């Protein structure tokens, strides 16, 4: 049986285990007098958990490990001796054979896949049988173990709760595992990249054109400085020029001027702006904003304005970030004690003077922290730049010229038909690592700013 089918079978077995365990506890209780240390339901849960958890754990691991094991088994068969040694073709043949074996494809480009398909199907069947047998053994072992422990003196509730605590701990460890997985995979692939391309060339080189990589000097065309500049220019300069004034002013208006009833429906409206998927913003930027920006540039006399300008992507990204800045500024302004505001107003300052000279300075650490978080989000944003920015890396200060970003290049590098081990695809992981480190640093700095410079008013 497949992993999915086994999963349901195990769940059903667990259900049966629950009833059997409970029935046995009830039978024991009615036949004997004396103190019973747990309710029948607890015994039921004890049996159910022991019946399901070991096979489920096994199936979860098996789900991830078995595809590679099946492939290894196929490669070990005599039919696979004529497979090309490494590279794109080998994996293409193997995946074709897999699709044929599963009945998802009906023809193949490579003759060899047709030969390998039966071997694939056989290996898959064999491994499915192994999985079924192991899951059954685990389920019945767990069931037998727990069933025999259903006795009057057995503290089933404590035992069940110990298992539940382990489950809770296990669930929260997945977060650490994910972080570890991200760091490990980025570091591992980047290490392979930096064994081909020197770190110095990558970090400080000013020429980026991964389409043509000279194998003798791969670092010459993989200098990422134009990408870093483009990312900074679009995400941290243009987008912030839109997002900071708009976000801050709308937060000021909402907290200080607007009536409560107005605030109640304007705030969700701004949040809708944050909920629009980025692919929609990207489409809008490419279809409407970018041509408008180019026409504007032509109108003011710039003849070589690009239709994939940094300005178009940055503007739309800025709009996307407005609600983010606004809600953080909102919180920071609300945290300023009202006695300061009242004091300033009582001295005769107008509301706008109070806001500019008292409230905003007092809320500044929070606002700055929020802006840093917004920058980290803007430079990690992908779809807007993929759809609206260009793929040509240029070092330029001109907002009407085309620039590219780190995220755009990651997508471009990984969606080509290149084989996985080339410098080109590995470069995407090096860029990913850089992006990860920079956003992490921005988040940490933002937290420190908020914590250290917040003035205590109480």
């Amino acid at each position: 049986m497949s992993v999915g089918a086994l999963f349901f079978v195990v769940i059903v077995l667990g259900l049966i285990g629950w009833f059997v365990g409970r029935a046995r506890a009830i039978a024991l209780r009615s036949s004997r007098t004396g103190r019973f240390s747990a309710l029948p339901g607890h015994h039921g849960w004890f049996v159910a958990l022991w019946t399901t958890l070991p096979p489920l754990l096994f199936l979860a691991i098996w789900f991830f490990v078995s595809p590679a094991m099946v492939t290894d088994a196929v490669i070990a068969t005599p039919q696979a001796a004529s497979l090309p040694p490494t590279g794109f073709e080998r994996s293409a043949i193997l995946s074709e054979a897999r699709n044929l074996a599963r009945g998802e494809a009906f023809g193949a480009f490579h003759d060899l896949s047709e030969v390998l398909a039966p071997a694939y199907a056989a290996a898959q069947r064999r491994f499915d049988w192994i999985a079924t047998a192991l899951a059954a053994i685990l389920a019945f072992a767990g069931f037998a173990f727990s069933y025999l422990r259903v006795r009057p003196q057995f503290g089933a509730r404590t035992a069940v709760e110990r298992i539940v605590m382990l489950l809770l701990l296990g669930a929260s460890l997945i977060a650490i595992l994910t972080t570890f997985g991200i760091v490990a995979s980025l570091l591992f692939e980047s290490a392979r990249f930096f064994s081909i391309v020197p770190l110095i060339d990558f970090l400080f080189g000013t020429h980026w054109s991964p389409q043509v990589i000279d194998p003798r000097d791969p670092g010459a065309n993989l200098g990422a400085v134009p990408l870093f500049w483009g990312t900074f220019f679009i995400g941290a300069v243009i987008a912030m020029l839109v997002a900071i004034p708009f976000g801050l002013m709308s937060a000021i208006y909402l907290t200080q001027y607007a009536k409560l009833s107005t605030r109640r429906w304007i705030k969700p409206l701004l949040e809708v702006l944050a909920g629009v998927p980025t692919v929609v913003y990207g489409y809008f930027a490419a279809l409407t904003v970018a041509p408008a920006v180019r026409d504007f540039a032509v109108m003011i006399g710039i003849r070589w304005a690009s239709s994939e300008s940094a300005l178009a992507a940055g503007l739309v990204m800025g709009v996307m970030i407005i609600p983010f800045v606004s809600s953080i500024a909102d919180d920071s302004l609300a945290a300023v004690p009202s006695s300061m505001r009242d004091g300033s107003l009582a001295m005769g300052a107008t509301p706008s003077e109070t806001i500019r000279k008292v409230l905003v300075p007092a809320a500044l650490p929070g606002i700055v922290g929020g802006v840093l978080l917004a920058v980290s989000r803007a430079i990690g944003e992908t779809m807007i730049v993929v759809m609206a920015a260009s793929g040509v890396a240029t070092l330029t200060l001109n907002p009407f010229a085309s620039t590219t970003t780190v995220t755009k290049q990651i997508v471009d590098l990984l969606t080509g038909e290149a084989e996985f081990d080339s410098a080109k695809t590995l470069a995407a992981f090096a860029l990913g690592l850089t992006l990860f480190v920079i956003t992490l640093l921005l988040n940490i700095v933002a937290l420190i700013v908020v914590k250290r410079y917040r003035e205590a008013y109480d």
Partner: protein
Amino acid sequence: MRRRIARRYAAERRFRWLGLGAIVLSAAFLFFLIITMVMQGAAGFLETRVQLPIDFRAAELNVTPEQLRGDRGDLALAGAGLEGVVDAAAGAAFPTAGGAELLSDGAWLRVRNAVKANPALLRQQVVIDVPVNSDVDMAFKRAGTPAAERIVSAMGDRLSSGLNHDFFGGADSSDPTRVGIWGALKGSLLTMLVTLLIAFPVGVLSALYLEEYAPRNRWTDLIEVSINNLAAVPSIIFGLLGLAVFLNTFGLPRSAPIVGGLTLALMTMPVIVIAGRNAIKAVPPSIRDAALGVGASPVQVVFHHVLPLALPGILTGTIIGMARALGETAPLLMIGMRAFIAAPPEGLTDPATVLPVQIFLWSDEVARGFVEKTSAAIIVLLVFLLAMNGLAIYLRNRFETRW
């Protein structure tokens, strides 16, 4: 003195108008975006049809009514050369408008379905509405190439507009008149199912652990830091993780909803944990004390009392996290869900695409007919997101208790 006050009041008014202007402009952008999409996308739900007269008596289709029953009818009609019959009928009916070229590639399928629904048609001369090609479709709806415009004015009232059912039932295609969103929508639903089944239990359990049981020590701090950090990691990094770990290390199938769902689950889980912790924190300690006081164990306190009370808050956070996952594109591009998929996925390991990625793919197409289809798909996506967010707001207002 008075002049100075007047100046200060003027500055006050200006500042106030600036604030209002910022909000109005932001809202205006939102409306402009939505109106642009609706204006362009509304036509994407429609198709242009032309009345095609077909004389089946003259066509000599060697098909018996028995052959048309069941699944074999499609094959029988295709084998009997129905497509050629339709093309010939179009050539005879519209000699000046390009003949068979006038029709969409999928026009004969419409005739096939009509015949299958009513085999008696094979002995009659009938007029069937079939979709026209993309150029004429564009020209009829708005404005097209000069050649297509001429055809439209020549055809006059033989053209009509109707709801494009294929758009809701089909999958990707290279012909804009034949594309549909059902394939991408089904891929999205399967992906979201996997995401929900993994992210929700894991997220809720970790929130419970961190908020209720975790001892204050270095390990707990590490878990908290990594969850808060994961919530801020750019989504494309999760795509790289999925590519490196799920595809390259474990060899799971490319483009499959299960891999997309796993990747998005890792991305959504921190959102659920953070929302869950806030909801659990909001349950007053007196509830826990009361339950402990009557003899409940710590696990019973949490699962019988705290969790049910916190559930509306957790569900709200989950729906918002799922809405974000539904709109997510970049990580799914990394794990190969951008392939051209012409059939809806049948299971969790079939190659599939999702709605946002489909939008991205269509936006890249050169043919002009795809513009309205892209906008129409965006409208569908926005409707789903709006419904999910509306549900979240409803849940919050309906079930949230203020203690």
